[in-house]
C-alpha cells in the first residue's frame, strides 16, 4: 500500500479550472512520476477563495502556497520543492502592502478576510445538542451578565461595541436597549425578528439552523437588560427546519434551567415563545410584525410611537434581528473593545452576506465591515461565472440598489452603501453579469414589491403599480423618453410619501439603475433595443447565411414553425411568427443563429 507523506493540492474550483488547473494537475502528476516520488500525491480541491491569484497550488505538510501557477511550472515545483527542498520563490504570493514574499498560507492576509463571529458555530457544532454549544462557551455570556454585571453595564458594553442592527436599518443596538429599559411598564417584551423577507437572503435561517442557542442566549440577555421577562421569536412558517431546531434549543435550555425561573440562581426569569409568520415581506417591518403577532393584519403603522415605547399589546417591545442577536454573546465575552476594533469607523464588527447570482461560489460569507465588493465578489465569490463580465451587484434586496464597476473598491459599510445609492439591508447580494438587463432587473424587483405591498397607503399601493406599468411599457418596446421622466418623478414621490419602509425604499432599484445605467434605459426607449438581449419583445433572431449549412435542425425544433428553408440552403426566420424562444439558437451546431 502506498504511503503518502507529501501532498500537492491543486485548486479545481471553477475559477482556477478556467485558467488551466486541470493541465497543471496532469503535469504535476507526470513530474511526480518522472522523479519517482512515490510518497507524493496530487489532489484536486475545491476553491481556496483566492481566485484572483489563481490557479493556486498548496504544498502539504509545509503549507507553501503558490499562486498564478502555469502548467509549465509543474516540473519546477516538483524538482525544486520536493526533490531539492527549496521553495520556488517566483511563485510565492507577494504581500501587496509590504511587498514581502509570503511563504505559507497561514500568513496570507486573505484568510483573515472571512471572519466568522455571527456564524462562529455554524457548520461546527451539532445545533441539536446544547452540550456542544456549552463546550464552545455557550450561555457563559448570559451567566456573566446575570451574575457579574448590572443591566446598565451590559448595555454600556453593547453601546461601546458599536454594534448596529443587522436587520436593515442599522440602528445602534445598545441605544435601542437603553430606550426600552428606560420606559416604565409592568410588562415588556423582547422580540427576535426572523422574518427574513428579502428573497435573496438566508443568513437568519442559517443561524437558526446552525446555532439556535446563540439566539436563545442573546434574547435572555436582552430581557435582562430591558426588563422583559418574555421573548417572542417571529419566524416564517416556510422555515420548518429552523423552527424545529429552535424548538429543540428552547426545550433543552429549559431543561438545563437556562430559561425559566431564577436563571443562574438570580431573580431573573425569562421564557421564549415562537410566533409564526405567513411569509409576507412587510411583516418583517417591526410595526407590521407586531400587529401580525397580535393577530391583526400585517400592516405597518406610523412611527412614532416606536415599539420600544409602545409595542406588542401596547407594552414596550425591543425588536432585534437574528444576526444582531448572534453577535451579543461574543461581545460580552470578548469585550466591546475587541469588537469595535473590527470594521470601519461607524460600522463595527462583521456582516454576513448571502452571495448569489452570477458568481462562481454562491454561499454564505461573513466579512469584517469595510471589506470591499471586489474582495467579496472576485476573491471569496470566485469571480463571475463562465468568465463573463461583471456588471452590477444588488445589495439590500428589493429595497436596495445596484452598485457597479466604479463601486468595486468601496469598503462595505452602512454609510458607504447608503451614499452610493444602495443599502446594507439584511445582506442579500445578487451579482449580475453582462447578460443581465438592468431595466428588467428593476422590473423584477417591482414585481415583488407590488405583490408584497400591504395596500394601506396610496403611494405604495397605486404608485408602485404605475411604476411597474411604465417599466412594462419600456421593456416591451413601447416606451418613450417622457416615460423616463415620469418614472423618475413618480419614484421620487413614492419614496417621499409612502407610510412604511417598504414603500419608502421600493423605488430604489428603479432609481439606482437609472442613475447607473441610463444608457440602457435610453436604448430601450430610443432605439427599442435591449442591449443585453433579455427583453424578449425587443429582440429579433436572425440566421447568418454565411454560416448556415442548411441542416434543417432549427426548422424542425422551432415550436411555431417560423423557420423555412430547403436542405443545404441557408434558412430564414420569419420575424412575424417567431416567438423568440431561443430554441433554434441553442440547437444550431454551427453558431449560425444570432439575436439582436
Amino acid at each position, binding site marked *: *500500500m502506498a504511503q*503518502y507523506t507529501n501532498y500537492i*493540492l491543486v485548486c479545481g474550483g471553477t475559477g482556477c479550472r478556467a485558467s488551466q488547473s486541470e493541465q497543471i494537475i496532469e503535469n504535476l502528476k507526470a513530474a511526480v512520476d518522472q522523479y519517482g516520488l512515490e510518497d507524493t*500525491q496530487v*489532489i*484536486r*480541491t*475545491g*476553491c*481556496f477563495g483566492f481566485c484572483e491569484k489563481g490557479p493556486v497550488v*498548496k504544498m502539504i505538510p509545509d503549507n507553501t502556497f503558490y499562486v498564478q501557477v502555469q502548467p509549465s511550472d509543474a516540473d519546477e515545483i516538483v524538482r525544486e520543492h520536493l526533490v531539492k527542498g527549496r521553495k520556488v520563490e517566483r511563485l510565492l504570493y507577494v504581500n501587496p502592502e509590504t511587498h514581502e514574499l509570503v511563504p505559507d498560507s497561514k500568513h496570507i492576509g486573505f*484568510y483573515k478576510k*472571512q*471572519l*466568522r*463571529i455571527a456564524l*462562529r*458555530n*455554524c*457548520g*461546527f*457544532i*451539532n*445545533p*441539536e*445538542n446544547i452540550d456542544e454549544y*456549552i*463546550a*464552545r*462557551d455557550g*450561555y*457563559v455570556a448570559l*451567566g*456573566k451578565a*446575570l*451574575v*457579574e454585571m448590572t443591566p446598565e453595564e451590559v448595555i454600556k458594553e453593547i453601546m461601546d461595541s458599536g454594534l448596529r442592527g443587522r436587520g436593515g436599518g442599522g440602528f445602534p443596538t445598545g441605544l435601542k436597549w437603553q430606550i426600552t429599559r428606560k420606559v416604565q411598564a409592568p410588562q415588556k417584551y423582547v422580540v427576535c425578528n426572523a422574518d427574513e423577507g428579502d428573497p435573496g437572503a*438566508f443568513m437568519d435561517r*442559517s443561524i437558526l*439552523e*446552525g446555532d439556535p442557542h446563540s439566539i436563545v442566549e442573546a434574547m435572555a440577555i436582552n430581557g435582562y437588560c430591558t426588563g422583559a421577562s418574555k421573548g417572542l421569536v417571529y419566524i416564517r412558517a416556510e*422555515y420548518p*427546519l429552523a423552527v424545529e431546531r429552535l424548538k429543540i434549543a428552547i426545550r433543552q435550555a429549559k*431543561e*438545563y*434551567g*437556562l430559561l425559566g425561573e431564577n436563571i*443562574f*440562581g438570580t431573580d431573573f426569569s425569562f421564557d421564549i415563545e415562537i410566533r409564526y409568520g405567513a411569509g409576507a415581506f412587510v411583516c418583517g417591518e417591526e410595526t407590521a410584525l407586531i400587529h401580525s403577532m397580535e393577530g391583526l393584519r400585517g400592516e405597518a403603522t406610523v412611527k412614532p410611537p416606536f415599539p420600544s415605547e409602545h409595542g406588542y399589546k401596547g407594552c414596550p417591545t425591543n425588536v432585534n434581528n437574528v444576526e444582531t442577536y448572534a453577535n451579543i*454573546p*461574543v461581545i460580552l*465575552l*470578548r469585550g466591546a473593545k475587541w469588537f469595535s476594533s473590527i470594521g470601519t469607523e461607524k460600522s463595527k464588527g462583521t456582516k454576513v452576506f448571502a452571495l448569489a447570482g452570477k458568481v*462562481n*461560489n*454562491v*454561499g*454564505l*460569507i461573513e466579512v469584517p465591515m469595510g471589506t470591499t465588493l471586489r474582495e467579496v465578489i472576485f476573491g*471569496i465569490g470566485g469571480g463571475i461565472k463562465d468568465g463573463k463580465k461583471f456588471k452590477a451587484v444588488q445589495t439590500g434586496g428589493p429595497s436596495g440598489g445596484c452598485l457597479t464597476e466604479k463601486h468595486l473598491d468601496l469598503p462595505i459599510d452602512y454609510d458607504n452603501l447608503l451614499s452610493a445609492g444602495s443599502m446594507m439591508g439584511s445582506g442579500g447580494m445578487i451579482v449580475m453579469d453582462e447578460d443581465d438587463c438592468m431595466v428588467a432587473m428593476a422590473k423584477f424587483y417591482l414585481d415583488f414589491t407590488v405583490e408584497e405591498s400591504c395596500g394601506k397607503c396610496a403611494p405604495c399601493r397605486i404608485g408602485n403599480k404605475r411604476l411597474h406599468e411604465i417599466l412594462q411599457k419600456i421593456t416591451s418596446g413601447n416606451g418613450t423618453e417622457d416615460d423616463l421622466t415620469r418614472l423618475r418623478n413618480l419614484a421620487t414621490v413614492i419614496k417621499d410619501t409612502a407610510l412604511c419602509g417598504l414603500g419608502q425604499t421600493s423605488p430604489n432599484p428603479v432609481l439606482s439603475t437609472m442613475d447607473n445605467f441610463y444608457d440602457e434605459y435610453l436604448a430601450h426607449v430610443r432605439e427599442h433595443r435591449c442591449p443585453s438581449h433579455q427583453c424578449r419583445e425587443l429582440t429579433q433572431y436572425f440566421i447568418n447565411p454565411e454560416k448556415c449549412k442548411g441542416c434543417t435542425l432549427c426548422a424542425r425544433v422551432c415550436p411555431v414553425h417560423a423557420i423555412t428553408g430547403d436542405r443545404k440552403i441557408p434558412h430564414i426566420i420569419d420575424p412575424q411568427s417567431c416567438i423568440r424562444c431561443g430554441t433554434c439558437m441553442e440547437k444550431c451546431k454551427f453558431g449560425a443563429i444570432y439575436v439582436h
Partner: protein
Amino acid sequence: MNKVKTLDDLKKMRESLRASLDLREKSNTPDQLVQIKVSMATCGIAAGAKEIMSYFIEVLNRENIDALVTQTGCMGYCYAEPTIEIKLPGKEPLVFGYVDKTKVEEIINKYIRQGILVDGIIPVTYTAVKPE
C-alpha cells in the same frame, strides 16, 4: 438532568464537556473514533445531505468502522453541497464537497481506512472566533 444553578455549575460543565471533546480530538490511538459532520442546513438537505448521511452510516456499518456521524449547520460552501467534514483522530478536520455515493465509498475506503487524501477537499476559507 443536571440543572445549571450557578455560573460555576456552567463553567464546570463546560470544562468537562471540553475535556471529553479534547480527548476525542487530540488522542491518536487507533481505537479513537472517526468523526463525520454532515452540513444539514436547508440547502444541504435540498442537495441530498440526508441521503448522504444515511449512506455513510450504512457503509460504515457494513465495513465495521466505528465512527461518530453527526449533523451541523451551514459551512458556507453552499455551491459545493452536500458538504461533509471528516476528522480522523489526531488530524486536522477536512471538508469534502459535492459528496455523492461514489465519493462516500472513496472517502471511506481511501481516507478513513488508509489516511490517503482524495480529490474534492474544500479548503477552509475563514477563521471563526472563539468567544474566549
